[in-house]
């Protein structure tokens, strides 16, 4: 590169830039010492650190960059970061001076071997560690999973540019997960993040108007937000501290590691009907499931339920995890269970419901028939009443089967047509979507959860009754505890919440909605509110 050629990465330091953000992360850690900037370019970080009173030592492989830094009065040295003796040379330069941070901004993606780069960074952080403190590691990499690139890939486009997300000199590409895996594997734990968010990147061009303010764009945005909380991140800017070398942070169990199903049983204590639920689970023919018994009460109740669980035969008892959950609403224990569920599917069984012996087997049949979908069986409703005396409760009706045999997306828009105990959801999808039970709802939380998942997965029906949903005429369940007003209010809330995002309806819905309008028009004619040649029915008429 000639002396007068423009410097490729001479980015100005401006508020919100990567350098400014990295500098803020370093300053906020309140460590004293030098800032070691690897792949420093022309010293943009040094500029950003100066106001905080930090001295930065820049290392860069390009002599023009090193010359530019020195010309600006910064400490700088030429260094090939891929050289075997890179750590040794850096240490020699730093000598015994204390180091506050080791920084690598927008560099790893240009180097051929990110694991090797991390090894170098780990080595340096260890070398510069003092007995009671350790330098901060600060990294920044572009996000290859930015929404703009996802949109372009949908159109079959991959537009490499001189700089930016698809910089032609990028050798390796990063998502948030890859960055986390890389740092975790080297024993680093994330301390803070100061990511650069950009709704429109240099990849967003006019011919992507289809992804601008359109319905399609709304849907894709909603999807991207669901699957990836970092879809708007242009540049990850993160600080890390070194924990025990080589000790990876404990990760959530992956659904692929676990049993077929995680059964979440929510209880508020030693409710007598819980025994029925547990016995019916213990009697399952397909035993490939775990039970997450979420006790939404104090530790004393949880202990008693642990004692109850321990009375079962070991083959079942060892598959029960009892978790105590404090505070929060009805949904808090469900969300706590989602955090630890290791099954490939998750199902919810309330403590007052019971299942037949093929409840799990039925879910498995449906899952094998249409993999990836939520799975659904049928429910028999039995009315029960609370009792005092010999029995704690007892049925007062035979079985009713008011719910449709097959799941219908449109029918269940009006109201929930599938009780919780009839559904199991693919855990990997639940996690990827980041779907949670809405803790601000007093009721209907299961309906909202269900809509959010099955709106994308669809449903595989098995068509067999495998559970008894006990409805309380007196005492016992949420049906009777909450007022009619609460049901109405929360029901409307769910509809409004779901309306915040576009809804993907299954094939065949057009015809059915069309028929629905025609029926409204026919009924209005019958009621004398319209004549045949009136304009078509409209909402708001």
């Amino acid at each position, binding site marked *: 590169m000639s002396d007068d050629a423009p410097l490729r990465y001479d980015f100005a330091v401006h508020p919100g830039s990567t350098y400014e953000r990295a500098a803020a992360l370093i300053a906020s850690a309140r460590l004293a010492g030098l800032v070691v900037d690897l792949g420093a370019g022309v010293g943009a970080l040094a500029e950003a650190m100066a106001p905080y009173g930090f001295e930065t030592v820049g290392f860069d492989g390009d002599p023009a960059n090193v010359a530019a830094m020195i010309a600006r009065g910064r400490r700088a040295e030429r260094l090939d970061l891929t050289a075997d003796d890179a750590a040794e040379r850096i240490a020699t330069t730093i000598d015994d001076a204390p180091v506050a941070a080791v920084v690598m901004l927008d560099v790893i993606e240009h180097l051929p071997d990110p694991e090797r780069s991390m090894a170098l960074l780990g080595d340096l952080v260890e070398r510069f560690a003092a007995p009671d403190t350790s330098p901060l590691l600060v990294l920044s990499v572009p996000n290859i999973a930015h929404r703009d690139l996802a949109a372009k890939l949908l159109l079959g486009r991959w537009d490499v540019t001189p700089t930016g997300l698809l910089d032609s000199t990028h050798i390796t590409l990063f998502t948030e997960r890859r960055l986390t895996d890389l740092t975790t594997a080297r024993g680093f734990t994330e301390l803070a993040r100061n990511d650069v968010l950009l709704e429109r990147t240099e990849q967003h061009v006019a011919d992507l108007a289809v992804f601008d303010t359109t319905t399609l764009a709304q849907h894709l945005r909603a999807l991207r937000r669901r699957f990836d909380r970092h879809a708007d991140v242009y540049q990850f800017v993160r600080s890390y501290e070194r924990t025990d070398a080589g000790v990876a942070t404990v990760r959530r169990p992956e659904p692929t590691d676990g049993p077929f199903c995680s059964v979440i049983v929510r209880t508020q204590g030693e409710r*007598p009907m819980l*025994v*029925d639920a*547990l*016995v*019916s689970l*213990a*009697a399952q*023919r397909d035993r490939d499931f775990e039970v997450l018994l979420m006790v939404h009460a104090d530790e004393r109740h949880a202990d008693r339920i642990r004692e109850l669980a321990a*009375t*079962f*035969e070991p*083959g*079942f008892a060892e598959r029960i995890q009892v978790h105590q959950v404090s505070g929060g609403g009805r949904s808090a224990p469900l969300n706590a269970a989602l955090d630890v569920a290791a099954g490939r599917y998750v199902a919810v069984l309330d403590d007052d419901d*019971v*299942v*037949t*012996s*093929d409840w799990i087997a039925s879910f498995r049949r449906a899952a094998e028939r249409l993999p990836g979908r939520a799975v659904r069986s*049928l429910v*028999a*409703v039995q009315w029960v009443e609370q*009792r005092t*005396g*010999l*029995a*704690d409760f*007892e*049925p*007062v*009706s*035979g*079985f*009713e*089967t008011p719910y449709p*045999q097959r799941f219908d997306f449109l029918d269940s828009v009006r109201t929930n047509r599938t009780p919780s105990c009839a559904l199991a959801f693919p855990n990997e999808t639940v996690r990827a979507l980041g779907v949670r039970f809405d803790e601000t709802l007093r009721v209907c939380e299961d309906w909202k959860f269900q809509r959010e998942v099955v709106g994308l997965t669809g449903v595989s029906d098995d*068509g*067999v*009754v495998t*559970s*008894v949903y006990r409805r309380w005429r007196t005492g016992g369940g949420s049906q009777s505890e909450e007022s009619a007003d609460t049901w109405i209010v929360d029901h409307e809330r769910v509809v409004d919440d779901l309306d915040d995002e576009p809804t993907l309806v299954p094939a065949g819905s057009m015809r059915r909605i069309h028929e629905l309008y025609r029926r409204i028009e026919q009924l209005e004619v019958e009621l004398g509110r319209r004549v045949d040649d009136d304009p078509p029915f409209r909402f708001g008429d």
Partner: protein
Amino acid sequence: MGGDGRSLAVQVVLYDDHLDSMIRLADAVAAAARFVRDHSDVTRIVWRIGDSSRWPCLADDAAAVLSARTRGSIDEVSVTFFGANLGSGGGSNALARLGDEDLLWVLNPDTYPAPDSLWRLLDTIDRDEQVALAESRQIPIEHQKTYDPVSGATSWACGFSVLARRSAFDSVGGFDDRFFPLYCDDVDLSWRLRLAGWKVLHVPRSVVFHDKQIDADGGVRWTPTAARSSTIAALWLYRRYGRPDLEASALADLGRSADPVALSVLDEYHRRVADDDVPRPLEGADHVATFVDGQFAPRRFSYVG
């Protein structure tokens, strides 16, 4: 194990059952037996399995497998191949004759008892020396018949899970094996015990899962074999407990029916009457019998089917 306490036999009669379901039962029975050992004076528990199948339905080493599975809770497991179909009641009687335990827990093979279920039955029997039978609550399809909400007294105890006091059981000669192959033998035993002054109690907190299925329309239906057996058995109950009117009416209904099950019931009825292979009427027993809408106790609610 063993000792000076009471003894209890768990009795299960099989007909073409599979080892898989017996292993599920073994695990549950072991937990229930352990609970009883920990909470009562019962110190010896044996498990007697009787096989009424045409050919042995379990492998030769089944007793060893189930014994290993229940070690520490059950003192002894035996599997007896009867070589003939003794029926449910006949099989239970044969198993009872193999020992002299103080208590008999008659249990269906397709069940899964809760860990404390047996202890709750035992506790009920121990509270009143007049109690001959204590019956569990069945899930997920709870039985409809009524019981006294305070005492638990009920017309009859369902044989899917019932704990019998041996002395009472023997005093009336156990089950009547002419209720063959199954159904209503438990109703008959209960009524004969009540006739002799014993009590029969329902124990709602003794929970036992009974592996039954529910139809898509919420019905609880009989298989043709079960429908046939239960229909014949009802005829014998009418005959034994002084209701020839109901017997005649049921026979007339069967005669009008085009259902093949009804025709086969009539064939068997007439053959067994001709052979005098039927339960004998009991004089003065009609006051313990309850016949309501084809059932043997008033119902709290009804299932379809």
